């Protein structure tokens, strides 16, 4: 008698084996099919795991949004993420490569350099010692990539003060070499090797306005911009090709110098897409995108110079409009990018720094 547990399958266990011929067909083919299906699932699973591992690895190495994955189009506008408040009339902004430290200069209020963490929480302020004088107006700020020292231009004293990454005042930048005349440093930028670029707005527009290039040790290497070529050069940024992008502010254009100091391209003034009005801050990100703050239009324009042989940047997109809402500007000024595809813009009249991302 066959034992029963009461819920036994309706198909009784065979007491008699099926005919040999039938068994050979059903008994061999079914496991083969099952095995193939399972192998397929397992392979899909392994592929999924591999993709996840690659994504994870890529993300841990780059810490960029997934929209920045290699192969995806980079020719698009970013979106607004958040704002950092606490500065009065912010002018310049610099950010450590990882985005962990954000330095913002304010030209009103307490005239300090505010230091924020990546969430916008203030962690410190920078101020030169009293021996440097009673009145200071910090303008633009830049970080030396080789030392992480923070360089802050000062409009009141025509000096550049240097702080350590931890915020300790180190010294005043002392240019070596003959500048010719006294200078008025404004825009600051570094090349990857520590070459230091400073826009100088001293004197008249026909004689004095220029871009000075210093070696990593502070020796004057060259002066860029023939007399009259630049009018109140403002922001400056070095791109992947070593070209120097300068906001030729009062000429309403962006001028691109090659490393030898020769003008190789310009983005002109006008009302067309990609044309400029009153350019101020300039920045370049890791994907080779060039950003120019077009202050008079209350917006930021993006161009693509990524690894192209064509020197003239191609206009990609614009972001921002005038206003006080999130993502709108009131006379934006300086800007910076980090290695994590964030863009930081000093939104001057709204007393905030806006952070945009992809």
């Amino acid at each position, binding site marked *: 008698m066959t034992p029963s547990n009461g819920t036994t399958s309706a198909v009784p266990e065979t007491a008699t084996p099926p005919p040999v011929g039938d068994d050979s067909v059903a008994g061999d083919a079914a496991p083969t099919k099952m095995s193939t299906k399972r192998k397929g699932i397992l392979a899909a699973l392994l592929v999924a795991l591999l993709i996840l591992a690659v994504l994870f690895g890529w993300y841990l190495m780059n810490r960029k949004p997934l929209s920045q994955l290699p192969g995806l189009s980079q020719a698009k506008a970013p979106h607004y*993420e*958040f704002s950092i408040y606490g500065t009065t009339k912010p002018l310049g902004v610099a950010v450590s490569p990882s985005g962990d430290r954000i330095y913002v200069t304010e030209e009103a209020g307490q005239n300090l350099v505010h230091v924020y963490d990546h969430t916008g929480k203030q962690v410190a302020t920078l101020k030169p010692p009293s021996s440097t004088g009673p009145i200071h107006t910090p303008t633009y700020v830049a970080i030396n990539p080789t030392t992480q020292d923070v360089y802050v231009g000062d409009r009141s004293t025509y000096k550049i003060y240097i702080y350590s990454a931890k915020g300790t005042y180190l010294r005043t930048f002392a240019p070596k070499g003959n500048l010719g005349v006294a200078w008025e440093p404004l825009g600051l930028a570094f090349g990857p090797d520590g070459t230091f670029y400073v826009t100088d707005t001293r004197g008249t527009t026909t004689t004095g306005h220029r871009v000075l290039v210093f070696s990593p040790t502070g020796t004057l290497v060259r002066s860029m911009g023939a007399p009259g070529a630049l009018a109140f050069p403002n922001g400056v940024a070095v791109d992947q090709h070593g070209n120097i992008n300068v906001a030729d502010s009062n000429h309403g254009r962006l001028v691109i110098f090659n490393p030898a100091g020769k003008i190789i391209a310009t983005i002109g003034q006008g009302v067309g897409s990609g044309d400029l009005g009153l350019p101020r801050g300039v920045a370049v990100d890791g994907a080779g995108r060039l950003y120019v703050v077009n202050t008079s239009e209350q917006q930021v324009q993006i161009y693509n110079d990524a690894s192209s042989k064509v020197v003239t940047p191609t206009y990609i997109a614009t972001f921002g409009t005038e206003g006080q809402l999130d993502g709108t500007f009131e006379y934006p000024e300086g800007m910076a990018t980090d290695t994590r595809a964030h863009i930081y813009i000093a939104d001057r009249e709204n007393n905030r720094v806006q952070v945009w991302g992809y």
Partner: protein
Amino acid sequence: MKMSRRSPSVPDRTFSRLMRLGVLVLAVGVAAFGTIYFQDQHVAAGPSLVDRQTSSAEAAVRTAPNNITARLELAATYQSEKRLDDALTQYNIILKAAKGNQAALLGRGSVLTAQGNLTAAVAVYHTVTVELSTGEFAGADPQLQQAYYSLGSIALTQGKTKEAITELTAALKINAQDSDSLYLMGIAQLKAGAPQVAVDAFNQALQFVPTGWCQPWSQLVLAYGKLHRAPQAAYAAGMADTCKSPAKAKTRLAALVKGPEAVNAMLAIALIAETQGSNAEAITWYRKVLTVDRTNVAALSSLKQLGAGTTPAKTSPTPKAAGSSTTQGPS
């Protein structure tokens, strides 16, 4: 003979285990990656600038409830946030303490208008005009001008054309360059059956806001239509299209380059091309303008700004060819 249930083979069991393990690793991996990604990428935006301003204005009023400036600021903040009832409350509190406060009266009138209570708004604005129209600086008082403009605007909405013209005339007497008042005056005159006066008003308004404002152009189409000035109406229609469809505008305007509006049409096409980033096309059109009018300031200055020479296009028509130009648009 009894047979035991066939159990899975060893490879099957291994597959099953591997798959369960794989699914588990995948699920945990996705969850971990998602969590890390979100925490790493996401930064809480916090209150917006407007919210901060509101909080700040509210705090200021809490600190000094009798400070009228603080309450005015709070009312304006509420108004900008479309919190009309809250704004009205603040204006009422101010007017209870300072009955003749003009800023509060104007603010209250503005809120009442936005709420659709036009009768009450008119009463408020009349209070302002009665109070200020006899003042020493009545001829240059921007608050009085604003009150007259608002009264004109409301009268126009209510279909009281004659009254609107009276109020807008008073507003323009204080500020003759107010493009908004000029625009409304044009509409009122058009409704009053004075299309030529309307044309003058619209054109004056456009002198102060020459680009990006297409409503006056649309109204000019009607006004020129009533004056039976078809070329001008066609030009205005082309200009009105610039806001909606630049391509359509260019087509319309290109049809006018042989008529009496040739210069205006060509300048407009050039500007559209320039706006679209087609500087070469813009230069071509500016040069065509010079073939008709060698001293055209707009064309000369635009060519200079575009870094182009000011040599007229080669297809130069006869000197008096403004109305019979052979100038052709770019292919």
